[in-house]
């Protein structure tokens, strides 16, 4: 007891308390990163399909999603703790819900049926069931028990191939019709606005007829081919039996893929996992962003940070050079440093509202009035877009670049600079040949930190040009190739939008975790790179001072 008293009296206990504070903060980092890793990495793993048989005769086929202890209050007001399991049962179009909670006590039998199939669909989410029959590609009698599933896959392949053929045909028809529809809108527009005389309109009508005649034969052929393909594809069907014994027949082209996780080996699962990760990184989102990939969001984020860097780096480097090489240390420099320190502390939403008010409404509005007056009141630059979002973020990340560049410039030994000046170089020559090359790691650190900040920032973007689903990328093959006025998608906003604005949050959650993981990986990797470069910067000059 005496020892404990002196332990407190001498304050050694406080050392343990402070250690507790540190361990707690580490624990929180590990917890948060851990949750996201577990939830985000696990999503693509094809977990087993289980069949649950309940006391009341209900049968559910699906994947175990979550378990928890629920509190049930019975008639007498007594609270009972019950273990519950959340099962993803899919089949939204049949059951009207994707998930079901069941009490573990109610489970009579649980099994992992070998033939349980998970179907991924283009619409309505997953489906779970057993394949009963399908339209085979090769002759019917060839199908036996052994090749049943692989033949089914062949049919799916054919259906999907037909699907892409149909899309191609549709595109060809659209392409054929483009000049005609253009002409038609021109005619109707000039009729409404009375910009053309009657004779001119008549002339246009004749042109229209001409085009119609010239393409009609080809159009008819294409349309009949399209119809035939569609008919053929609708004929490839599959009948699926669900857990409760219902049979559903669907055309196969409605599926993305189907597989039997219960029969897959670990290697197969790993391969499947990688395919899904690849799909996540390279495909467009489906089903209001809750499935498919996040490619447009990755693309938007990358393009936005590139534009932001183009704006912020020269500005930031100039400011840092001015502070360290040109300005006389005094009031102005103190003011600039104060401005930078404060700029770093200004809440990001304030930059956002500034970007909206100044860049979007004032600059954008002026540009619209001067150069795009023909399309007004439909705004071109006078609404949020990738250019304005990038400029807003450039302002926001300016202090990061300035501070990091200054660090780099300060690390250049004075002797080197003085030596250069003594040899007769002008100040600019000295900066160009000595300061800038040697401060390069510092500048790059700044750029990387700015990019990491820009990639993770959401609040200012959501009011200056980010949207939940952009119809087209801001960079494409049509002139002028880069469309600065377009709205874009962003990983951070994707998390907010899918997690909080989506109609079916529970089904969307895995997507949010995976996107969050991707964002964290990007941001953390960039930061580690910056830390590494900064350490190298310090090392380099430790040896070169003399």
């Amino acid at each position: 007891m005496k020892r404990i008293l002196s332990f407190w009296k001498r304050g050694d206990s406080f050392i343990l308390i402070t250690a507790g504070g540190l361990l707690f903060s580490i624990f929180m980092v590990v917890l948060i990163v851990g949750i996201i890793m577990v939830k985000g990495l696990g999503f693509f793993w094809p977990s087993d399909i289980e069949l649950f048989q309940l006391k009341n005769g209900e049968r559910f086929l699906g994947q175990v999603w979550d378990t928890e202890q629920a509190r049930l209050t019975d008639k007498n007001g007594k609270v009972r703790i019950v273990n519950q399991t959340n099962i993803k049962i899919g089949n939204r179009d049949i059951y009207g819900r994707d998930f079901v909670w069941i009490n573990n006590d109610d489970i009579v039998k649980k099994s992992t049926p070998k033939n349980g199939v998970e179907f991924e669909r283009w619409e309505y989410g997953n489906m779970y069931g057993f394949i009963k029959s399908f339209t085979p590609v090769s002759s019917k009698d060839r199908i036996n028990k052994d090749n049943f599933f692989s033949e089914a896959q062949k049919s799916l392949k054919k259906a999907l191939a037909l699907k892409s053929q149909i899309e191609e045909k549709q595109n060809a028809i659209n392409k054929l019709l483009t000049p005609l529809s253009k002409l038609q809108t021109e005619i109707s527009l000039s009729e409404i606005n009375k910009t053309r005389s009657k004779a001119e309109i008549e002339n246009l009508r004749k042109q229209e007829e001409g085009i119609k005649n010239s393409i009609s034969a080809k159009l008819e052929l294409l349309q009949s081919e399209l119809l035939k393909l569609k008919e053929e594809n609708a004929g490839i069907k599959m009948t699926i039996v669900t857990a409760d014994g219902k049979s559903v027949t669907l055309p196969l082209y409605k599926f993305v893929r189907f597989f039997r996780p219960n029969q897959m080996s670990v290697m197969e699962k790993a391969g499947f996992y990688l395919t899904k990760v690849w799909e996540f990184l390279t495909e467009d989102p489906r089903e209001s962003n809750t499935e498919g990939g996040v490619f447009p969001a990755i693309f938007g984020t990358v393009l936005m940070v590139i534009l932001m860097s183009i704006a912020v780096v020269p500005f930031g480097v100039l400011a840092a050079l001015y502070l360290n090489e040109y300005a006389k240390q005094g009031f102005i420099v103190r003011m600039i440093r104060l401005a930078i320190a404060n700029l770093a502390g200004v809440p990001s939403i304030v930059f956002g509202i500034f970007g909206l008010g100044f860049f979007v409404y004032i600059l954008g509005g002026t540009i619209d009035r001067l150069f795009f007056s023909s399309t007004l009141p439909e705004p071109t630059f006078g609404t949020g877009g990738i250019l304005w979002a990038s400029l807003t973020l450039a302002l926001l990340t300016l202090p990061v670049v300035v501070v990091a560049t200054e660090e780099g410039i300060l690390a250049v030994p004075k002797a080197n600079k003085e030596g250069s000046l003594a040899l007769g170089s002008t100040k600019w020559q000295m900066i160009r040949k000595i300061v800038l090359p040697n401060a390069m790691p510092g500048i790059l650190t700044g750029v990387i930190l700015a990019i990491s900040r820009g990639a993770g920032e959401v609040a200012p973007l959501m009011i200056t040009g980010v949207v939940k689903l952009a119809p087209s990328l801001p960079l494409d093959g049509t002139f002028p190739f880069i469309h600065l006025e377009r709205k874009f998608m962003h990983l951070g906003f994707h998390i907010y939008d899918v997690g909080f604005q989506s109609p079916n949050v529970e089904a969307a959650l895995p997507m949010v975790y995976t996107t969050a993981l991707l964002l964290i990986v990007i941001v953390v990797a960039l930061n580690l790179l910056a830390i590494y470069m900064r350490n190298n910067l310090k090392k380099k000059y430790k040896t070169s001072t003399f």
Partner: protein
Amino acid sequence: MKSDFKKKIERSNKISKAVISFGGYGVIFSIIGIFLFLLYETIPLFYGAEIDTALSFKLSKKKHVVLSGVDQYKELSYLISNNGEIDFFNLKEKRITKKDTLPLAANEIITTGVRNSNGDISLGTDKGRILFFNLNLKPVFTGSQRRIVPQLELKKSFRSDVENPADNNGIKILAFSENDDGVLYWAWVNAEDKLLLKIYDPDEEEYFDFSLSDNLENVNVTALALNPDQESLIAGDDKGELYLFDLSDHSEPDLLDNWKAADFKITSLSFLIGNNTLIVGDKNGNVTSWFEAREKGSDELKYREVHTFKKMDSEIVNVVPSPRNRLFLVIGKNGKVELNYSTTGNTELEFSENKSRVLSASFAPKADGIFVVNSKNEVSLFKLDDEHPDVSWKTLFGKVWYEGYPGPAFVWQSTGGTDSFESKFSLIPLIFGTLKGTFYAMIFAIPIALFGAIYVSQFAPKRFAKIIKPTVEIMAALPSVVIGFLAGLYFSPLFEHHLMLIFLLSVLAPALFLILISFWGMIPERKRRTLPAYYELGFVLFVMAAVYYFSSIVSLPLEKIFFNGDLKQWLYSSLNVSYDQRNSLVVGFALGFAVIPIIFTITEDALSNVPASLSSASLALGASKWQTVKRVILPAAAGGIFAGVMLGLGRAIGETMIVLMATGNTPIMDLSPFDGFRAMSANIAVEIPEAPVDGSLYRVLFLTALLLLVFTFIINSFATYIGDKLRKKYARY
């Protein structure tokens, strides 16, 4: 002679100097620019109302105008004279472009008229007739040319007298209105001072006539106002009393209430837009506003006096409500006109009509102009510039009594379902929300960050510290959207589900932790000193795990014993505390997580930079490690610690995504940790996409941003200043 080469070099040297200097000043310009731009968008909120005579002319012919108005472009006006003539006067060309005549009998004279916002007009005559017609001034576009075309459609005309249709009982006072279902109401006082009522029900296609004077003995009705939304009629008498009739039963109007509203004869009554606020004007020039509200402790809705407006120095002859907002004109008998705003009770401006009586006054449909005809036969159009009457220092920061509320309150509710919604722009709930979130974040973050920084800088093994610093930097780099998303979708349901455990962890666990770590003291001091620091860390980790394990085991039994098995339910039933899933606790945790690395990094820097000579001296004098930290290192690093805490505070105030996602964003003012709130930053993010550019809401949101900027600016500057000062103070060691 200089060579070209040298010239070139010098030129590039000059250019580079100019460009680089420009870059340096650019930083100052950008922060000043942001500040000035926010100010520029905010300042118009506080401009007062201004009025300008846009046009004034004298009519060539003597006319007695009973009703007048202009179209929305202020190009065409109409003047209805008492002899039934309607003149359409083109204000651009300054001439009468069209004339029309109402079907009046010989010598019949119009005595009174009312027009509603649909353009429906009712006129009463001295022969006891009511004319009901529609007059709209519609813009017609041919190409880009605009022409205003008047459309006149006579709907009904009927004898007013219910009892003796044959009498030519003239109409003295007339009120008319129409509700959304198309029910029409007329109420009037005839020459015999009888109060009469007519209701047209479009469903039954039937008229109902009533004489209300039976309910009012010895009452001399002097003013009328109809409320189509609440289906009620209000009559004022010469003693200053108001009588409220319920008209919802079309076959039986009913006197509901009667109260004294003024000390003098009531001369004017009018409902404002939204049909909630009633403006009462009396003979002595007093103007008051009333609306139905509950009294404290009572459930009954009653008309209560809300504002008293600036007194006029003559009898109030008319009150004209604005079709757009809660502005209204009060017209005095001596030609003075007052423009008031009902929400604030402010008088925006006053003007006078050349010592002549105002015959008719009306607002332009967009409330950007006032059209006045006076008894000297002068017609004037005033340009009205009062963009933001709904915002003042008082509405932003003071308690305001809004329509339907039981009393003055701080309320933020910027938009509602209808156009006639009364916007409520109190910043107090938002500031309160920001401070509440910041408070919970800071009480969570400060101890953890400070303890962590002290341990890493003073006690931790060097190699361990080397790993910790990058870890914390990673913590700082985690995007706030990820933290917010986890807080909103993972931690808030988790907290709700394990509320008892959270409660134990924040109350019982720290105490238990302190008790358990005492056991470390059982090891003799000399032996403790020689143990590697990792043993210490391992012990603390073990204690923390044990405390957590113990808490999670006892949580359920304790909840059963003390809280009936459900703490959340118990909170509600016993303490009447409701539990929001996304509440301040969750925000405190998440926001605290975001703030910890900022405080940690700066504090750790400050502590590490304390000269080793100081601590060595202290240790050499026999002080223990902790005594050295407490007495020597902490005071010496106080400046840096303070700066770190302040910068953390600045971050917490401005953080947007976390509070947006982890709270319910309801602007309530409540200290309970189990309720959510709405912070200023999240409010901007939520509302700015919907705010019409340059409208009141838009500018108020810019004001919020400006406040945030100023808050953080002060905090940052203060942190720098105090940090420097304290650093200097301890620099002498």
